[in-house]
């Protein structure tokens, strides 16, 4: 199921990201695709095990920070035999540029894939310039 949420802009809410950052665990950097279209930038991140409740997105000044907690289905008296994944924290951050409108960021999380859309301010959307022959 797709869930949509707005990016936190309130500096008071910084604490969620900061607290997680203080956690004594090395974060994994999720693999991302980043591409630009005429109306904005899209960022797609693979974050398996993260649900909407465990995802934190924050645009502060010109930095976009993404954090998520990986949640496993656990069982009693469980012992690890093999682990490619040894952390339960994802984190990545990107510096944005001024033509991007950080107040209009949208994010959708589905099946452990986060899709973020960062629109360009209207004034920065490219206009096609017609060349007239004559």
């Amino acid at each position: 199921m797709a869930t949509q949420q707005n990016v936190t802009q309130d500096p008071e809410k910084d604490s969620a990201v900061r607290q997680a950052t203080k956690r004594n665990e090395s974060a994994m950097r999720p693999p991302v695709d980043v591409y630009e279209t005429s109306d904005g930038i899209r960022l797609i991140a693979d974050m398996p095990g993260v649900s909407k409740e465990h995802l934190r997105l924050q645009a502060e000044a010109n930095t976009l920070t993404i954090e998520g907690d990986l949640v496993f289905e656990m069982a009693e008296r469980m012992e690890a035999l093999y682990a490619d994944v040894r952390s339960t924290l994802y984190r990545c951050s990107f510096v944005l540029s001024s033509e991007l409108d950080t107040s209009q960021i949208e994010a959708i999380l589905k099946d452990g894939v986060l899709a973020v859309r960062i629109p360009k301010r209207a004034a920065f959307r490219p206009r096609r310039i017609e060349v007239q022959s004559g």
Partner: protein
Amino acid sequence: MFEGLWGYEHPLSGQFRRLEEELDAVFGSGASLTGTRNIRSLPAGSFPAVNIASTPEALLVYLFAPGLDAKAFDISMQQNLLSISGAREISLDDAATYYRRERFSGEFRRTINLPDDADPERVEAKYANGILTLRIGRRESARPRQIEVR
């Protein structure tokens, strides 16, 4: 739980973890102290990542495969050899400029050598939040039994 295994079991385990990480960097994940790996292991960072755990009753296999459909997985098990394959095709936007393309696209297969007591008749699979979780029953006879001393 997996971080716990390497994190706090023993005062030395932190050092072992660092050593293990260095070995991973050199030999790929799944490396033991002598750099010996399972013959079917994949290089570090291969898609999808796998964690395996055991309980007295079952083996749990986690496959970190986001952005797929539950029906996209082809799971088979022969004796104790578990094989999971599928494909994740990421279509590109022709009109876009790409800066990073780190996400895996294409066909994948992971073959996992489970402990001998894995029971291929009792396998349950579930897909949620991009993790495929397999629960494989362990054969009764292999379970440790409490022996009473008279």
